[in-house]
């Protein structure tokens, strides 16, 4: 596997030029950004889109009867439509704009959860969940008396599903990540959704690590809720999405109260707006939502299937090369099968902070720590890992630099 193979299918150098930040020097080297699982870089057209809004048509949405406000409202709602088509929602009314994945999950836990769960009801999660898909359910369990259950992992970091049907007894909701932010494991969401529905449970999917990296079709997966963040998919921070089946959203009470989410307000009571406005109290992140629409256009022009294929090829190359680094252990699946481009590893007993600092001095940005998955790290029996993660703009040459810098770090600290 070589970098030229990638270049034939995917003009990676032209693509990289779309991202202004990637051409800047870092500690005297070219920046190798291998932390897109935390937050992706932004293409020029998304940055320009933000500026264009503020320079040309900045105004609040859904309010003014003047030209600027109409233009802003049109662009905001058009972005909602783009997002709906991107995930193949049946209607753009199913797309609720929120701040991020965390807020989307909290919205469901507060709104759907408080109304529907009773003492003794069960919520099924997994050991690999990010804190954002764990803590809101712990809080819900404390409020309602519901119980949390967990799918365990096998030695390769895949879900153990042998007893799924039995584990689904009495479960009202399955909340599961589609792709682990640490192990890279891609979970068989469609299969789990089918079995969850057969057991009378709903399924919420944390798409923070999957929606940016692969085609995700909510109808094909046949799921009930999908949460994801804009900033991990070339869009700005501060904008994220909760997608939910319209019939479910329409039965759910508001999450936050305030402007925009009402029909009629009197001093002692109010009636609430239809979805999705019911869940969008207050002035939304207008520029960011419009820029998310621009990011979706960009990703679709490159092609989600091509992005997935590119990252998979890079991942295969990285797994092969890292296997040659003495003392390095990769967590999660050891092949590219049902695996995404988040590669967490330890290097002998060198602390991940030291590994990351050594890589930083070579201009390579990676993440070190528990990656907001303390229970998963307890399961893996390591306090912390170093994580390299890939996106559409990463190259085989960057993997080579990573490997060389790791060898250097091992010699320094070993």
């Amino acid at each position, binding site marked *: 596997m070589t970098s030229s193979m990638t270049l034939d299918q995917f003009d990676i150098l032209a693509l990289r030029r779309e991202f202004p930040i990637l051409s800047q020097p870092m500690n005297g080297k070219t920046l190798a950004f291998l932390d897109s699982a935390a937050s992706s870089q932004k293409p020029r057209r998304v940055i320009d889109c933000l500026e264009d809004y503020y320079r040309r048509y900045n105004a609040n949405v859904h309010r003014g009867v003047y030209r600027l406000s109409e233009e802003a409202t049109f662009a905001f709602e058009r972005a909602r439509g783009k997002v709906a088509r991107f995930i193949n929602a049946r209607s753009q009314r199913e797309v609720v704009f929120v701040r991020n994945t965390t807020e989307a999950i909290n919205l469901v836990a507060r709104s759907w959860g408080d109304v529907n769960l009773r003492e003794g009801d069960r919520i099924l999660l997994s050991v690999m969940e990010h804190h954002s898909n764990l803590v809101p359910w712990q809080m819900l369990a404390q409020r309602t008396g519901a119980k949390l259950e967990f799918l365990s992992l096998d030695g390769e970091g895949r879900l153990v599903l042998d007893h799924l049907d039995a584990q689904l007894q009495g479960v009202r909701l399955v909340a599961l990540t589609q792709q682990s932010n640490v192990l890279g494991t891609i979970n068989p969401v469609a299969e789990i959704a089918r079995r969850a529905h057969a057991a009378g449970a709903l399924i919420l999917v944390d798409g923070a690590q999957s929606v940016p990296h692969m085609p995700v079709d909510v109808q094909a997966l046949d799921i009930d809720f999908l949460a994801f963040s804009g900033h991990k998919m070339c869009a700005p921070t501060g904008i994220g999405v909760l997608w939910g089946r319209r019939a479910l959203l329409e039965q759910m009470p508001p999450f936050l109260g305030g402007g925009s989410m009402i029909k009629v307000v009197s001093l002692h009571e109010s009636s609430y707006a239809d979805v999705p406005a019911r869940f969008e109290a207050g002035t939304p992140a207008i520029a960011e939502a419009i820029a998310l629409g621009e990011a979706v256009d960009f990703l679709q022009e490159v092609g989600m299937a091509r992005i997935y294929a590119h990252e998979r090829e890079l991942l295969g190359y990285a797994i092969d090369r890292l296997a040659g680094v003495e003392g390095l252990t990769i967590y999660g699946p050891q092949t590219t099968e049902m695996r995404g481009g988040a590669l967490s590893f330890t290097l002998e007993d060198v*602390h991940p902070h030291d590994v990351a600092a050594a890589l930083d001095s070579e201009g390579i940005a990676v993440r070190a720590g528990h990656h907001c998955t303390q229970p998963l790290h307890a399961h893996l029996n390591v306090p912390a890992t170093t994580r390299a993660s890939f996106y559409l703009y990463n190259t085989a040459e960057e993997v080579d630099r990573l490997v060389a810098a790791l060898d250097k770090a091992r010699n320094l600290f070993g």
Partner: protein
Amino acid sequence: MDDLYRELILEHYKHPHNHGRLEHPDISAEEHNPLCGDRIRLDLRIEHDVITDVRFDGRGCAISQASASMLTDELIGMPVEEAKRFSKERLLDLIGIPLEHNPVRIKCALLALKTLKAGLYGVGHAPDDDDL
């Protein structure tokens, strides 16, 4: 890199001083840095209000472990009252690397001092970094 990991840090990291545990310590304290999973335990022997022996163990990055090693060298023979006033500036001077503008790594560097203060002032009184 050279700034962050000068020779002295690596030397203390690879060959830590006063490493291990004391039998029947007079004071024992343990602190964690939840951000990165670093952990330091400090055992102190105190005779007539003077620290006569110290051991530390734990796990963490080179900076957290080297800083603990350097701190223990300072503590042996130090009056408890002086140890209570041991400032973060004094420890950072010992470490001798520029961490003032590195909010993540400064927590690693100060973990041992935080453990010391928690031990000397009593359980449940671990100070914030700003109060060290």
